[in-house]
């Protein structure tokens, strides 16, 4: 404790009482947070806990509604991300901020190009880039175009770019989400290197093992509140998990009666492959069942489901509906077989953000609304019904989908796919980035659907969701199905063992993407 007090004088970055509201919705409540030189301070929390909002405030991308920010003991206002960078606070985004068409060197010096008289000093920038990359023990040629780099190399370039800006605080938002195990090791070595040079690192993740391995201190957020800040040594993974979730799982998930063993198989997939993503995956889905798909990001779950509903090319495998082989070559074929897919990419693939709710709702099932001309009156009725049924909270029905909150968008998307009255519903990360209240509602919808005899496949990266909702769980890893769990086997550690390759079919051959 004494050590802590001494260190407090040395913080590089400290925020106090940060509140943040978007419109009427408050997402951060009086957060205190600080970073010291040469430490890794992990920021832990569920999706939607406010981690991303907090780091955007730390780096100047967002401004807090109230609260103070001190950099090296001086109070400042981060009015812009460039102000943050000038202060040595650099955020490495989840989606990289690199210009794909430019070279590594051009990216590193983007906006801070070196000049000799009025021309670019190419030679100096080349040499400096090479030096930086060498420091990171990374053998990328500065002349390579960023678009030709692997994901981990892109991350290295981001880090090199940050260091070239003399970063004092480096904020990494889920840096390992896109990395392989080997690449994670390289990243961790690099982080240790940076620590030695006195850089403070804010590390966001919800992988507890990583936090244990790399973090000196942990701050846990839940629903926008600061829960605790402590040394990593003082917290066991179980404590962290409990503090993150903060409530018994029973409160969140509806009670479900166990599924009878003799329910019909409504969907069966045999040895389906998607080039570069999935190898020989099989599954069986019973009537009224919720079948979970667990695994790390990039395990091939989404690719498998998109291939099943005809959104992706597949290179082999058979699909059966009610025991009959089905020919699904497009999403339209899947719809005709009463199968629906709810995308995880709400903004990119789910809804037309600039368009009103009505055309969004009926887009998938438009042929039901008139043979030649669209019956707009019937559409409006359908919208009123959907708004009520799915509790979509919208002030003005002529509003565009983009003006809805994430949770209401998700409910609209759910209403949209339900328009075709599907029997098999595949939902991909249905609660990503939405608030706890809406999450609970979506769980209730899922339960209600199975009660009506619909069958669901649920892809989720949130372990509690998989455990709380699913009758059986299929685990995937690197494109392979590694195990299927049911009953008491559905438990976090067991799932992680299959997901990380400690257990299950031993396949070391990663499918090259």
């Amino acid at each position, binding site marked *: 404790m004494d050590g802590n007090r001494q260190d407090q004088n040395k913080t590089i970055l400290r925020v106090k009482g940060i509140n943040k509201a978007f419109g009427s919705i408050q997402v951060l409540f009086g957060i205190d947070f600080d970073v010291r030189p040469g430490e890794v301070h992990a920021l832990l929390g569920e999706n939607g806990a406010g981690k991303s909002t907090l780091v955007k405030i730390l780096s100047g991308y967002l401004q807090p509604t109230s609260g103070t920010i001190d950099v090296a003991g001086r109070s400042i206002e981060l009015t812009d991300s460039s102000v943050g960078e000038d202060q040595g606070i650099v955020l490495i985004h989840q989606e990289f901020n690199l210009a794909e068409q430019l070279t590594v060197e051009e990216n590193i010096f983007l906006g801070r190009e070196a000049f000799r008289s009025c021309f670019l000093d190419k030679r100096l920038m080349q040499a400096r880039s090479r030096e930086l990359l060498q420091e990171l023990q990374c053998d990328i040629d500065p002349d390579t175009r960023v678009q030709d780099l692997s994901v981990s190399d892109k991350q290295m370039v981001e880090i090199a770019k940050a260091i070239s800006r003399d970063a004092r605080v480096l904020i990494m938002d889920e840096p390992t989400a896109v990395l392989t195990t080997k690449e994670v090791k390289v990243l961790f070595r690099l982080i240790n290197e940076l620590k030695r040079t006195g850089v403070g690192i804010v590390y966001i993740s919800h992988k507890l093992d990583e936090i244990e391995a790399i973090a000196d201190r942990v701050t846990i957020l839940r629903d926008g509140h600061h829960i605790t800040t402590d040394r990593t040594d003082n917290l066991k993974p179980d404590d962290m998990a409990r503090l993150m979730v903060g409530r018994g799982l029973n409160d969140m998930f509806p009670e479900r009666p166990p599924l009878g063993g003799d329910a019909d198989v409504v969907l069966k997939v045999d040895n389906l492959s998607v080039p570069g993503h999935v190898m020989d995956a099989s599954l069986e889905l019973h009537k009224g069942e919720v079948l979970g798909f667990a695994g790390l990001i990039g395990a091939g779950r989404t690719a498998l489901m998109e291939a099943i509903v005809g959104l992706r090319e597949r290179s082999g495998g058979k699909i059966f509906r009610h025991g009959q082989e089905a020919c699904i070559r497009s999403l*339209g074929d899947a719809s005709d077989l009463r199968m629906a897919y709810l*995308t995880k990419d709400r903004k990119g*693939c*789910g809804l*037309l953000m600039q368009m009103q709710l009505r055309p969004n709702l009926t887009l998938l099932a438009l042929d039901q609304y008139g043979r030649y001309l*669209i019956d707009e009156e019937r559409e409006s009725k359908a919208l009123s019904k959907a708004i009520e049924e799915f509790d979509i909270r919208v002030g003005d029905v002529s509003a565009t989908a983009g003006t809805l909150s994430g949770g209401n968008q998700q409910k609209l998307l759910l209403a949209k796919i339900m328009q075709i009255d599907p029997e098999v519903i595949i939902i991909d990360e249905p609660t990503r980035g939405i608030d706890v209240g809406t999450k609970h509602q979506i769980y209730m919808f899922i339960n209600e659907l199975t009660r009506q005899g619909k069958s669901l496949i649920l892809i989720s990266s949130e372990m509690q969701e998989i455990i709380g909702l699913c009758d059986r769980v299929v685990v995937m890893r690197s494109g392979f199905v590694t195990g299927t769990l049911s009953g008491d086997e559905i438990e976090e550690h067991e799932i992680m063992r299959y997901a990380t390759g400690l257990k299950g079919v031993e396949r070391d051959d990663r499918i090259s993407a």
Partner: protein
Amino acid sequence: MTELVRSMTTAMRFDFDFKTYGPFLALLALIILGTLVNPAFVSEANMTNMLTRSAFIGIIAVGATFVITAGGIDLSVGSMAAFIAGIMIIIMNTLLGTLGVGWLTILTGMALSVVIGFAAGMINGLVTTRGKIEAFIVTLGTMGIYRSLVTYFADGGTLSLDFSIREIYRPIYYDAVLGIPYPVLAFALVAVAGYVVLNKTRFGRHCFAIGSNEHVAKYSAIHVNRVKTLTYVLQGICVSIATIIYVPRLGSASASTGVLWELEAIAAVIIGGTVLKGGYGRIWGTVVGAIMLTMIGNILNLTDAISNYLNGTVQGAIIIVAVLLQRGNWRRKK
């Protein structure tokens, strides 16, 4: 018309909505200006003349509204018009011998022109969608191809319709039913059909969806490639209809036929409030845009205050102002 009234009243209730009815205001301003410049402007003869002249660009622009709403662009329409006109003249001149001087020859020529327009649009659409090449590049290519083909067929000069056929064909441009010239009638029919298809059918809704976000369209079981190709086919058919009423006007086609029509058509679409990057389109706006472009030239003809040579300058300024006004509204909404 009721729709117009409704949109006007909603616009009044909120603050001034340029986006919805700016084009009509601009048209009204132009009419007032024209009348002030020369009272002959509002004469029935002048009005009819103007509408007739705006029919070519107008019909092509209705097709362009579909292409642009679905997120595409077609630069080849001017060249395509010249090409179709040239081929049509060659066909009719050739058929003279077998089918004789009469409507049969002309109707065959017209039918074939529609077939060529259909095929040319299909080529633009298929190369864009199957070849995964940007529409700008594809249609820039076909624009050059059609232009040079018509020059080649005309041997660098002019292709002229046989005089005997021209006498019979002439009324299609110069005559009228119930006081409405045929070109205006054709324009009106194409515009109404375009309005219904774009706003009331599944195909139209799919155009909006694709232009807004192709991924969302794909994930909504829309056959994206099919719909996009169809927009180019519609565009091709519109070009052939425009050509059918254009040929009897001069009875000839040359390398300079339809030059810059593609830009005038796109300008009409944009003035009308359709979003260039897709996702939002408006047929009646396009109609107003096409009429405005012709009206500007007409007003400059009727006045000595500004040289007729500055036609392009005024048109250009109006296009930019139109888009500025529409965007001003976007920003306020946010």
